């Protein structure tokens, strides 16, 4: 099955982390799941300050500055993985470096 691991954290908490160490930890983590064959794709997102939210209502496009919801923890990146089942996906999610100060949402991908 495929799962999307959505990485949520407070940007202020991210700023408090040792940046170089985080980068190194993410490198090790990513390499690990590439080697195990679980990795499909991944991206890091720019901060929510750079986000734009778009809605279409009554045929009109409404554009607003910022993320769709102002929450303390924001989506900061994702991994798309292949895992045997939810337990394997949870095991991988627990190893995402941000899991130590943020949250990882594990979402199964709709099988088409």
């Amino acid at each position, binding site marked *: *099955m495929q799962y999307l691991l959505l990485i949520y954290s407070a940007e202020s908490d991210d700023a408090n982390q040792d940046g170089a160490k985080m980068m190194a930890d993410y490198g090790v983590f990513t390499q690990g799941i590439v080697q195990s064959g679980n990795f499909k794709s991944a991206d890091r997102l720019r901060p929510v300050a750079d986000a734009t939210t778009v809605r279409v209502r009554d045929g009109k496009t409404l554009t607003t500055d910022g993320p769709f919801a102002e929450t303390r923890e924001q989506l900061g990146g994702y991994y798309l993985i292949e895992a045997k089942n939810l337990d394997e996906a949870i095991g991988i999610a627990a190893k995402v470096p941000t899991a130590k100060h943020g949250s990882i949402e594990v979402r199964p991908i709709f099988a088409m």
Partner: protein
Amino acid sequence: MDLEDVYRRHGAEALATLIRLVGDFDLAEEGLQEAFAAAAIAWKSEPPANPRAWLVTVGRRRALDQLRRRIAFRNRQDVLTAEAAIDRQAAPEEADEAVAAFGDDDLLRLIFTCCHPALSLEAQVALTLRTVCQLPTDAVARAFLVSEETMAQRLVRAKAKIRAAGIPYETPPPERLAERIDGVLAAIYLVYTEGYAGDPARSLAAEAIGLARRLDALLAGRGAIQGLLALLLLTEARRAARYDAGGDLVLLEDQDRARWDAGMIAEGLALVAPALTADTPPSPYAVQAAIAALHDQAAAPADTDWRQIVGLYAVLMRLAPSPVIELNHAAALSFVDGPQAALLRIEALAARGQLAGYDALPAARADLLRRLARADEARAAYAEALALARHEPERRFFRRRLAELS
């Protein structure tokens, strides 16, 4: 022959094996329902030597028929894929006896799947009661004071998540086993506590004890499981004395101890020592069982070893700190250091607000104030407890105390 009885005894194992064989909860349940219907006709005279194997064999055949019927409505490509899946599932021509012989492993798989931490605790409990205990949906709904429709929805959603999220039908690997057992025990404990106060028919309490017994048999020598089983037995042993003839609550110190169930106490006591020594530090359930054991061993309230109980609560506070344990610790302390010392602790606890809305907090305060002869304050606290109480016996008890104090 009582068919109901055979269903209850073998239904869970048969279902557990069927889920492994057909790879789907709903399909396995439908297969089992049809197998039960077939059994009602075929077993007229007497059940076969191995009812579980019979149910599994017939249930699997019916489930696969059902799968083929479902596929008939889909397109050609789906048919090919699904036929291959059926072949795979049916492929190894295992003797049906051998298939059913894996019942214990399958039951364990079923328990761990129903109590998977990716499901909400209430969904875990509902699924466990429905599938492992084979309670009818309406009975599960009644136990949790929701409509049958709401409970059916809850079960459908839980099973849908198992399928869609890929919750595995597996016993967890050794390195995850301890934490997953804790999850299962939390669900069993919730079944018991619902049954403890809310269910005079005691069916939930019996189910919880049955589940703990089964788990203890399947995973022998686990301190946490032995501890929970002991705790439930040592608590349940007092049930007959906990309510009077009118259904009113009787406090521990006023209970007729001759009515305690000696068999349950003996079974529970025998488990306490192995539960306490199985792990270092011991499981919190084992410590709670040791506290219950001290109550059960006192021939009269005055014989209760409160000093040791207070000590065990202190251990519990280190192992698994929670406001509820702190409340019980303070209540026990009132029998060693007096009600005034306990009252200070409970007021500090109340000030933190963590137990807001929990009737046991004002009830404990009220009891201490009553013992300190501060009647007005005790009345106010009982009134607060009365407003928060969820169950009728508790409400009647608080009303009675209020009447005594005025």
